[in-house]
Structure formats: C-alpha cells, structure tokens
C-alpha cells in the first residue's frame, strides 16, 4: 500500500479544516453556517470516495456484468444533502430572528448587549 493512495482523505481533511476554521474564527452567524456547510460537503466527499471502486462504474445494473461502485454511501449522502439544506434553512431562520431581536448577527456584539442589560 503506497501512501499516496490516501490522497482522497487528505483533500477531505483540508476542506474539513477550512470549514472548521470558518466556524471557529468567524463571529458572524451566517458565515458560521456557510462554514458548517463546507464542513458538511467534505463529509459527503469522504463517504463517496470510500464508495469508489477502482475501475468501477455507477451502480446502475447493466446486461453485461461489470464492477460497480458501492451504492450504500450514495444512498446515505443523497438523503443527507437534502436533510442538510433543510437544517441549514432552520439555522438561517434562527439567525434572521436573532438579527430581529439584537440588530446584529455578530457574536461579540450580541454578547455586549447581553452583558449591558
């Protein structure tokens, strides 16, 4: 097993860490949600890349037998994407309501307002 056969995981890790950086560093709530989405996509890529088979093709059965990639991760991620957008929408809705209540979506400004009252 050569070490460069693992490059798919490294791409995933880099994307994941970019997402994590945005979540940790950014104080803006909507930017945090964007960061979470980047993180989420990296997990999708992780699953799909595990399902990939060398020389495989898309798992739609054909007349002559061929080797297919793993359909199970596809099913999981397919539903996860749609669930992901639904939960993202919920998060954004919360951010919109927070903006309505505080007039800002910056974390530290919200904290300031909280401590003064």
């Amino acid at each position, binding site marked *: *097993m050569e070490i460069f056969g693992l490059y798919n995981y490294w791409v995933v890790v*880099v994307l994941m860490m*970019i997402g994590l950086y945005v979540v940790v560093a950014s*104080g803006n709530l909507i930017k945090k949600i964007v960061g979470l989405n980047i993180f989420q996509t990296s997990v999708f*890529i992780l699953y799909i890349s595990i399902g990939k088979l060398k020389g495989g093709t898309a798992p739609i059965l054909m007349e002559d037998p061929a080797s297919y990639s793993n359909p199970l991760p*596809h099913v999981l991620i397919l539903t996860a994407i*749609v*669930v992901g957008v639904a939960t993202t929408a919920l998060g954004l*809705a919360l951010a919109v309501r927070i903006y309505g209540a505080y007039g800002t979506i910056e974390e530290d400004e919200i904290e300031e307002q909280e401590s003064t009252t």
Partner: protein
Amino acid sequence: MATAIAVARLDQLFAAVMLFGIYSLLSAALFVVMDAVDVAFTEAAVGAGIATILMLSALALTSRTQRPVPRRRHWMATGVVVVTGLGVIYGTLDMPSYGDPNAPAHLHVVPHYLQQSMAEIGIPNVVTSVLASYRGYDTLGETVVIFTAAVGVIGRLGVVPGITAYVKSGGMQHHLILRITAKLMLPLILLFALYVQFHGDYGPGGGFQAGVIFASAFILYGLVFGLEDATAVAPSIVVRVVAACGVLLYALVGVLSLFLGGNYLDYGVLVEDPTQGQHIGILLVEFGVGMTVAASMISLFYAYASYKPEE
C-alpha cells in the same frame, strides 16, 4: 478547494455565498467522477440552487458584510485547525487506499445488494432499491426530518399574509430577458423533474432529486414573477398540506403492507408477484418523498420571502 479558501477569507458575505454556490457545483462534478450520479444530481440542485437562494434571502434580511476577524482570534483558530487536521491525517494512515476493492466498506452487505437486488427488487438502479426498499425505514426517517425542519422554519419566521420583503409584487418582471427565459425554462424544468421522479428506477433519479428540481422551478417562478403570482399558483396552505401528505403516503404504504401480512414497508405483499409489489411500493414511496421534499423546499422559500422584520 481554492473556492473554499476564498469563501473562508471573504468578509463580503454576498460574494462568499455566491462562491459557495460555485463550490457546491464543483463538488457535484467531483461526485460524478466518483460514480455517484444520484448524489451529484442532488448536490447540483440543492447546493447550487436552493441553498444559495436561501442564504441570499437570509442575507437580505440581515446584513451583507462581516466584521473582519481579529488577529488574535485568527491565529488561535488557525492553531486549533492545524492541530486537529494533523491528528485527523494521522488517523487516515490506517485507512484503505482510494478505490481499493478489498476495503471493508465493499465486503459486507454491498455484494448482496449488487448481486441479489435484480432478483429481489427487479429494478436496475441499485441506489433506488437500497434507498426505498432495503433501507426504507431510514428514508422514512429522513423524510420526516425534512418535514420537521420546514415546520421549524415556518414556526420561526411565521407565514405573514402581507408580502413586503425583498420579493415585492411583480418581482423582476420588468426585466424582459429574465421573464422570457424563465417562461421558456419552467415547463422544461417541471417536465425534467417528473422524468427524474418516475424514471428513478431505471436511471439516476428519484424522489429526493425530483423534489428539489421541482421546487427550484417554483422558486424561479417566485423570484421572477413575484411571490403573489407564485402563491396564486401554489397557495402556501396547499404546499404545507402536500408536504404533510407526502410523509403520510410513505407511512401509509408501510401500514398497508402490515395489514396485508408483511413486515412494515415490505412492499412484496402489495400484489401477488413480489417483484411487481416492490415496483409499486418503491414508486409510491418515492412519490411521497418527492411530494414532501418539493413542498418543504417551496414553503421554506415562501417563509423567507414573506418574512417581515418587526420594527
């Protein structure tokens, strides 16, 4: 990857969100490369379409710029990220390499799905048969989650009858090009959605993909012709009832198979020939999923577009 870095660095949230759409589209292309055509479908419709529009709506309701990240926080975050990243990369050293046919993920239930599903279910697209039949419980759960999230958003933002926010009456109707293009595209998008819905057994497609494509047609209509026209075609109460009916249809198919003497969501008992029964069951269930997904996405859009901030 470069787009992701750019998204992370931008303080202009509007540009960041647009770039995020491009990033989603690129990852959809990556999914095609890795043989996951069904997933790519969904990601392209959801990530580049609906998610971007929802984020833009949220931006329109809040602020468009971010305060720059303070230096100290930037370095602290970088430190955390680098340490975590190195730890995770160390963890990958034990993982099987990319495309390895002997990886544990390929050895357990998957050979059964690939070899037996033609005889047991009788449809060529293995993704669909795993989604709707072998793992029907999971999919029912996911559908309920989507429905619940839509209910949550409606609960947070409320459905205000008076429409004032950024999609004013008339929308972008004064733009001739947008209007004509939208009119040309809409029937094609709807037709394509129906094709994807009912052809999901044989090619890439199914309820989830069809639902988001269908919803994006409605969102396009709402954006171009204004929310009033869109709600005239599909009133929000109807959309919400359809979302509930989809989940109900899915669950009822399960109950029906219980009454016919099978297990919950065992479609084989629906008619005499088990494979035929699987066909009918999958078709019904996928239709339920499509209804819920499309209606939930449309009502999410309605909720954002009609939200009126309290002054």
